[in-house]
C-alpha cells in the first residue's frame, strides 16, 4: 500500500543496525571493558536496559492508554517508570554482586536448592510468555496499519505477528542478534528520537499541553464501540469513581474505580523487579555500584520517555479530530474523530506530521521496540532453559554445542507459542472489553512477576532467615493467586471489587510474602549463610575489580589516573 | 597541669542533651488539630483547602525549625557554639568565658598582629593621641604621632617601659623629659604606661601618649590594661589546655597496648602455617591499625574513619578469640559523616573486650551502636557487652584511671579530653551490672 513508508522503514532499520555494527567497540578487551565500564559504560548500559524495557507496550501502548482513558492511562506511564525504584532500592546492587547469570540461578544459589531453581524457571517462563504475547500483538497491529494486507491467506494482523516473530526468532536463534549492549542502546536512542520528533512537531503545529488538557476536560470522554453488526458508534465513558457521571480526560475514573487505581499502580511498581530480561541485564555491569548507578540513569531516561509518551497521548486526543477532517485516509481509521484502535495514535500522528516517511519512522520505532524486547525475552528464556534446566538437570555433561541447541529449540518453541496466542487474541474483538490492549496485556506479565517473583526476590536478598521451601511456597502462592484472580476477573468483568482481580499484585504479593515468612519460620536456612551474605552484600569483589581496573589503566597509560 | 579536671565522669547529667522527638510530635499534632478546629469547624464558611494546608505546613515548619533551638538554651550560648564549630574545637572553654569581651583579638596571645588590631580597637577609647603595645622585648604596635621613630619590632625606646616591665606598676609621666625618648623631635609629651600581666608575670605594657601637657586618664588605661591582661591569661590557659589535650592524645597513641600487639602477632604467626591467606590479611589489618593510630593529627575525625579503626581492631581480636568474640555494629547512615573526638571509640571497645569478654568462658557479643538525633543535634555512641560486668568499686577505679597500669586505656583519659573539647556539653555514662555486662554511653554535640 504505502511503498515510501516501507522503504523508509527498511532503510531506517538498516541504518540502525549498520550504526550499531560500525560503532560497536571492537575487540572488547578487558581494558576496554573497564574503561567503558566506568562512566560511559553506566550510561550505555542504562540505554541498553531502556532498549530492552521499552517494548511495544511503552512505545505504542502508553500513548494509546492515555489516548483512550486520559489520566487513568497515565498510571501506566507512572507505573512503568516507578518500577525501577524498587529495583534500585532492593535489587540492583546485591543482584550484581552475587554474580549469577539469571534469576533462577540467583535464587537457586542463594538458597542452595535445585528445587527453587526449577520453580523459578517455571515462573520465569510464564512471565516471558505473557510478555511476549502483547509484543506480538503490537507488531500485528503495526503491520495492519503499515502494510494493510496479509500474505499466504492470513489476515494482515496474523501476518504481522507471524513475520515479526519469525524474523526475530531466526535472528536470535542463529546468533545474529545477540542483544549486545550496544545495539540495544542504539535502539533505545531511536525510540527516544521518534518521541522527541513527534513532540517537537506537535508543539510546532500549535499544540499547547496544559490548554489542551483543559479543553479536553470540558467535554465528556467518548470512545468508539462496535455493535454486533460491525457498526461503529461513539459511546461516552462512565466515571467509575463518581458513579453515573461521564468521565473526562483529565480526571481519574474513565477506566478504573478508586480501588483499581491503586491496584494498577502497585502491580506495575512491583512487576519490574521480577522481569527476567531486565534483571539479566544487570549482570553486565562491572560492579554492584555500577549496577546501582545504571538504575538511576535508567530511571531518568525512563521518566523522560514516559513523560513524552503521556504528552503524545494527550496530543493525539486533542489533535486527531481536526486532522481527521483534513485527511481522507483517516476516515476508515476513525469514528467521529476518535481512533478505532488507540494503538494507532502515534502512527497516525507520525503520518500527519511526516507523511509516509513519518509513518515509516514511527512504525520502525514500534518494530524496533518490539524486536529489542522480544530478543531480550527470548534470550532470557533460552538462558533459563539451556543454562538452568538443560545443563544442570537434563544433561549435566552437555557439551557447549548441545546446550546451544537446547537453547535454540527453546527459543523457537516459546516464540511459536506466543505467536499462536497472539493470533488467537484478535485485538479488534477485544478493544471493547480492554481498551489499549497492548498496555493492558503487558500488565499481566507485570502482575505475574510482581506477585510470584518480586516478593520472594526481595525477601531472599534482605532477610537472612528466608529458606528454600519458603521461597518455593511463596513463588507458587504468588503465581497461583495471581492467575486465579485473573481468571476470575475475566469471568466477573471489571467493575467494583473485582476490578482488582485483573491487577492482582496488591493481594497476591503480600500473600506470597506472608507465606514465605511463615514457612521460613518452620524450616532451616541454608548452611554457610555467612559466606553467601558476604557475596551478596559485601563490596570486596567490587573494590577488587575497581582496583584491578585502576592498576590496568595506570599500567597501560603509564601514569596514574589522578593526573589528567 | 590543667586545673579543670573534674571528678571522673561516671553518670554526669547533661542538661541540654535531652531527646526531643516525642514532645515535638505532640506539639505538631496539637498544632494541626488547632488549625483544623479553627479553619474548618469554627470559621463560618470553612477556609479553602489550599489555605488550610498552607497554614498547617507553615506552622509545622516553624515548629520543626524552632523547636531544636528552643531545646538548646538561650541564644548567646548557641552563637558561641556555632563559632566554635567553625574554628575547630580546641579553644572552646576559653571562649565561653572570654565571651564577655570577645572583640579583643588577643585570644591567640600577645602577637604582633593581635597587638596591632587591639591598638586600633582601643585607640579611640583611651583618650590619648598615640597608643602602643609592647611585650618584654619589643614594640608590637604603635599607633598615632611618633610612629615614625617608635617603629614596630624595635626595643621600647622610652626608659619608662623598662621601669614598668620591672615593677609591674602603672606609671604616669607628666613631662617630656621623663618620657626618655632619645629622639629630640618626638612630639609625645605625656604618657600613662600600664603593665600587661599573666598572673604575676609581666609580659608587656600598654602605653598611651598625649601631645599636650595633660596625661591621659590613668584609671581608664589601667582598667583597659587589666582587661587585656585577663584576655592574655585566658589565651595562655587555652594554649596550655591544647598542649594538655595533645599530650593526652600522644599518651593514648603511645599506650596502644603492647599486649595487644604481641597477642596479635602470635595469632598471625600461628595462622601463618594453617591459613597463610588469612595471616596475610591479618598482617594488613594490623598495619592499617597502626597507620591510623599514628596518622591522626587533629582532635576530631569523621565517624566513618573511627569506625574503620574499630573494625580493624575488632577483626584482629576476632582472629584471636575466634567464636568467643561476636561483634554487632548498628550504625545510622547519618552518623558516618559526623565528627567525633579522635581515638575515643576504639578504647571503649577495647575495654569491653578486655574487661567484659576476655574472662568469660563462652565469650559474648560486643555491640557498637551509633545514632544521630538531628533534633537535639546530638551524636550518641554506645558500646555495650554482655560480658562479666564490673563491680561498683572496680568501676570507680577504672573510671578514675587507677587501672591503666594494667594495660587498659583508662576511661579517665577519654573523659578528660572530652572535658576539654566540650566543656559541659557532653555526657559520658558507664553502667555495669556484675554478670550481665557493661554499657558505655557517650553523647556529644553533633559536629
Amino acid at each position, binding site marked *: 500500500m504505502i511503498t515510501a513508508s516501507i522503504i523508509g522503514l527498511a532503510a531506517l532499520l538498516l541504518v540502525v543496525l549498520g550504526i550499531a555494527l560500525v560503532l560497536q567497540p571492537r575487540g572488547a578487551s578487558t581494558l576496554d571493558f573497564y574503561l567503558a565500564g566506568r562512566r560511559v559504560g553506566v550510561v550505555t548500559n542504562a540505554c541498553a536496559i531502556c532498549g530492552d524495557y521499552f517494548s511495544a507496550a511503552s512505545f505504542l501502548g502508553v500513548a494509546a492508554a492515555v489516548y483512550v482513558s486520559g489520566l487513568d492511562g497515565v498510571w501506566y506511564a507512572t507505573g512503568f517508570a516507578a518500577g525501577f525504584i524498587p529495583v534500585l532500592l532492593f535489587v540492583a546492587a546485591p543482584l550484581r554482586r552475587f554474580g549469577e547469570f539469571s534469576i533462577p540461578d540467583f535464587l537457586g544459589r542463594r538458597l542452595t536448592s535445585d528445587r527453587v531453581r526449577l520453580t523459578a524457571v517455571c515462573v520465569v517462563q510464564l512471565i516471558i510468555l505473557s510478555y511476549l504475547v502483547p509484543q506480538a500483538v503490537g507488531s500485528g497491529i503495526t503491520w495492519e496499519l503499515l502494510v494493510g494486507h496479509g500474505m499466504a491467506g492470513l489476515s494482515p494482523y496474523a501476518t504481522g505477528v507471524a513475520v515479526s516473530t519469525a524474523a526475530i526468532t531466526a535472528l536470535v536463534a542463529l546468533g545474529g542478534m545477540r542483544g549486545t549492549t550496544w545495539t540495544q542502546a542504539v535502539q533505545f536512542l531511536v525510540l527516544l528520537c521518534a518521541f522527541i520528533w513527534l513532540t517537537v512537531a506537535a508543539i510546532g503545529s500549535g499544540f499547547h499541553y496544559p490548554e489542551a488538557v483543559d479543553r479536553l476536560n470540558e467535554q465528556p470522554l467518548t470512545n468508539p464501540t462496535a455493535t454486533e453488526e460491525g457498526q461503529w458508534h461513539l459511546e461516552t465513558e462512565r466515571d467509575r469513581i463518581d458513579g453515573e457521571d461521564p468521565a473526562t480526560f483529565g480526571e481519574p475514573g474513565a477506566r478504573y474505580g478508586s480501588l483499581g487505581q491503586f491496584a494498577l499502580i502497585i502491580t506495575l511498581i512491583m512487576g519490574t523487579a521480577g522481569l527476567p530480561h531486565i534483571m539479566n541485564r544487570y549482570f553486565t555491569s562491572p560492579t554492584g555500584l555500577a549496577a546501582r548507578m545504571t538504575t*538511576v540513569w535508567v530511571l531518568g531516561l525512563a521518566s523522560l520517555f514516559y513523560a513524552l509518551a503521556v504528552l503524545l497521548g494527550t496530543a493525539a486526543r486533542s489533535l486527531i479530530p481536526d486532522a481527521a477532517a483534513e485527511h481522507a485516509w483517516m476516515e476508515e481509521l476513525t469514528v467521529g474523530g476518535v481512533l478505532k484502535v488507540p494503538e494507532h495514535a502515534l502512527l497516525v500522528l507520525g503520518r500527519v506530521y511526516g507523511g509516509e516517511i513519518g509513518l515509516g519512522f514511527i512504525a520502525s520505532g514500534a518494530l524496533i521496540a518490539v524486536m529489542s524486547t522480544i530478543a531480550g525475552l527470548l534470550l532470557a528464556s533460552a538462558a533459563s*532453559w539451556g543454562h538452568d534446566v538443560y545443563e544442570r538437570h537434563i544433561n549435566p555433561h552437555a557439551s557447549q554445542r548441545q546446550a546451544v541447541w537446547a537453547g535454540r529449540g527453546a527459543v523457537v518453541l516459546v516464540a511459536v507459542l506466543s505467536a499462536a496466542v497472539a493470533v488467537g487474541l484478535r485485538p479488534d474483538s477485544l478493544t471493547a472489553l480492554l481498551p489499549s490492549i497492548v498496555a493492558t496485556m503487558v500488565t499481566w506479565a507485570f502482575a505475574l512477576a510482581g506477585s510470584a517473583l518480586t516478593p520472594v526476590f526481595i525477601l531472599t536478598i534482605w532477610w537472612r532467615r528466608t529458606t528454600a521451601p519458603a521461597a518455593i511456597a511463596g513463588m507458587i502462592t504468588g503465581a497461583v493467586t495471581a492467575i486465579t484472580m485473573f481468571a476470575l476477573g475475566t469471568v466477573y468483568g471489571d467493575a467494583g471489587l473485582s476490578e482488582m482481580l485483573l491487577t492482582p499484585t496488591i493481594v497476591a504479593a503480600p500473600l506470597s510474602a506472608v507465606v514465605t515468612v511463615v514457612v521460613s519460620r518452620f524450616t532451616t536456612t541454608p548452611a554457610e549463610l555467612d559466606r553467601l551474605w558476604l557475596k551478596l552484600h559485601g563490596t*570486596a569483589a567490587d573494590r577488587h575489580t575497581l582496583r584491578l581496573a585502576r592498576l590496568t589503566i595506570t599500567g597501560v597509560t603509564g601514569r596514574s589516573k589522578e593526573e589528567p | 597541669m590543667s586545673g579543670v579536671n573534674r571528678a571522673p565522669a561516671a553518670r554526669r547529667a547533661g542538661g541540654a542533651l535531652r531527646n526531643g522527638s516525642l514532645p515535638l510530635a505532640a506539639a505538631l499534632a496539637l498544632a494541626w488539630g488547632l488549625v483544623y478546629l479553627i479553619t474548618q469547624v469554627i470559621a463560618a464558611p470553612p477556609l479553602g483547602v489550599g489555605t488550610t494546608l498552607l497554614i498547617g505546613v507553615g506552622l509545622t515548619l516553624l515548629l520543626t525549625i524552632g523547636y531544636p533551638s528552643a531545646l538548646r538554651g538561650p541564644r548567646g550560648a548557641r552563637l558561641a557554639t556555632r563559632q566554635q564549630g567553625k574554628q575547630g574545637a580546641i579553644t572552646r572553654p576559653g571562649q565561653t568565658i572570654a565571651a564577655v569581651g570577645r572583640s579583643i583579638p588577643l585570644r591567640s596571645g600577645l602577637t604582633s598582629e593581635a597587638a596591632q588590631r587591639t591598638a586600633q580597637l582601643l585607640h579611640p577609647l583611651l583618650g590619648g593621641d598615640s597608643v602602643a603595645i609592647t611585650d618584654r622585648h619589643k614594640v608590637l604596635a604603635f599607633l598615632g604621632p611618633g610612629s615614625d621613630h617608635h617603629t614596630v619590632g624595635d626595643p621600647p625606646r622610652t626608659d619608662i617601659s623598662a621601669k614598668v616591665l620591672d615593677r609591674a606598676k602603672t606609671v604616669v609621666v607628666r613631662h617630656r623629659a621623663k618620657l626618655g625618648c632619645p629622639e629630640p623631635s618626638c612630639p609625645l609629651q605625656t604618657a600613662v604606661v600600664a603593665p600587661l600581666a599573666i598572673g604575676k608575670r609581666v609580659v608587656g605594657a600598654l602605653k598611651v601618649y598625649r601631645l599636650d601637657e595633660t596625661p591621659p586618664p590613668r584609671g581608664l588605661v589601667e582598667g583597659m590594661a587589666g582587661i587585656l591582661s585577663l584576655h592574655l591569661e585566658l589565651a595562655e590557659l587555652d594554649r596550655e589546655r591544647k598542649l594538655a589535650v595533645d599530650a593526652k592524645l600522644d599518651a593514648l597513641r603511645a599506650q596502644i597496648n603492647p599486649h595487644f600487639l604481641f597477642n596479635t602477632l602470635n595469632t598471625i604467626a600461628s595462622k601463618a602455617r594453617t591459613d597463610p591467606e588469612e595471616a596475610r590479611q591479618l598482617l594488613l589489618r594490623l598495619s592499617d591499625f597502626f597507620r591510623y593510630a599514628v596518622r591522626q593529627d587533629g582532635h576530631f575525625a569523621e565517624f566513618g574513619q573511627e569506625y574503620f579503626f574499630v573494625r580493624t581492631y575488632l577483626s584482629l581480636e576476632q582472629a584471636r578469640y575466634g567464636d568467643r568474640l561476636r*561483634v554487632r555494629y548498628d*550504625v545510622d547512615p547519618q552518623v558516618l559523616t559526623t565528627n567525633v573526638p579522635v581515638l575515643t571509640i576504639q578504647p571503649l571497645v577495647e575495654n569491653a573486650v578486655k574487661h567484659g569478654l576476655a574472662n568469660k568462658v563462652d565469650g559474648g557479643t560486643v555491640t557498637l551502636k551509633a545514632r544521630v538525633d538531628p533534633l537535639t543535634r546530638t551524636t550518641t555512641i554506645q558500646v555495650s557487652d554482655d560480658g562479666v560486668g564490673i563491680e561498683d568499686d572496680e568501676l570507680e577505679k577504672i573510671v578514675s584511671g587507677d587501672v591503666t597500669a594494667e594495660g587498659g586505656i583508662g576511661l579517665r583519659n577519654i573523659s578528660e579530653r572530652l572535658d576539654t573539647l566540650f566543656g559541659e556539653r557532653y555526657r559520658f555514662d558507664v553502667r555495669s551490672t556484675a554478670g550481665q555486662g557493661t554499657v558505655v554511653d557517650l553523647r556529644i554535640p553533633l559536629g
Partner: protein
Amino acid sequence: MVPAVPPSDAGSPPPEDRDPAGFELTDEYDMPAEVDATFRTLRRAAFGYFALFVVVVAAVPGLTLALDWWSQGRLVGGMSPSFVMAAFGLYVFFFVLAVAAATLANAVEDRMLGGPERDHPEQRGDAP
C-alpha cells in the same frame, strides 16, 4: 547463540576469579560482622525510602478521593494538580529519590566496608 551466558558484551570476570600471580591484588575482603552492619543500615535506609515512595505515589490517586481541589483545581494553563503530578511531578520525584537513595547507599558502603583509600579519592561513585 550461547544460551549459557547473559546477553552481554565480553563478560566481566567473575569476582572470585583470582590471578595466582597477582596475589597481592586480592587483599580486599569483608568481615561478616561488617557486612551484616552495612546490610542492616542499607536495609533501614531502603525501606525508609520505599515507604516514602509508596506514600507519595499512592497519594496522587488517594487525594482524588479526599480532596476535590486535587482534581478540580486548575494550575498553570489548565491542568489539575493531580494531572500535573502524574504527568511531570512524579517523574521528578522518582529521579530525585533515586539519586538520593543511590548516593546514600554508595556513601554507606564506602564508609562501612573496606579501608579508607586516601591515595585514591574520587575513584568510587559514578554520579550521574
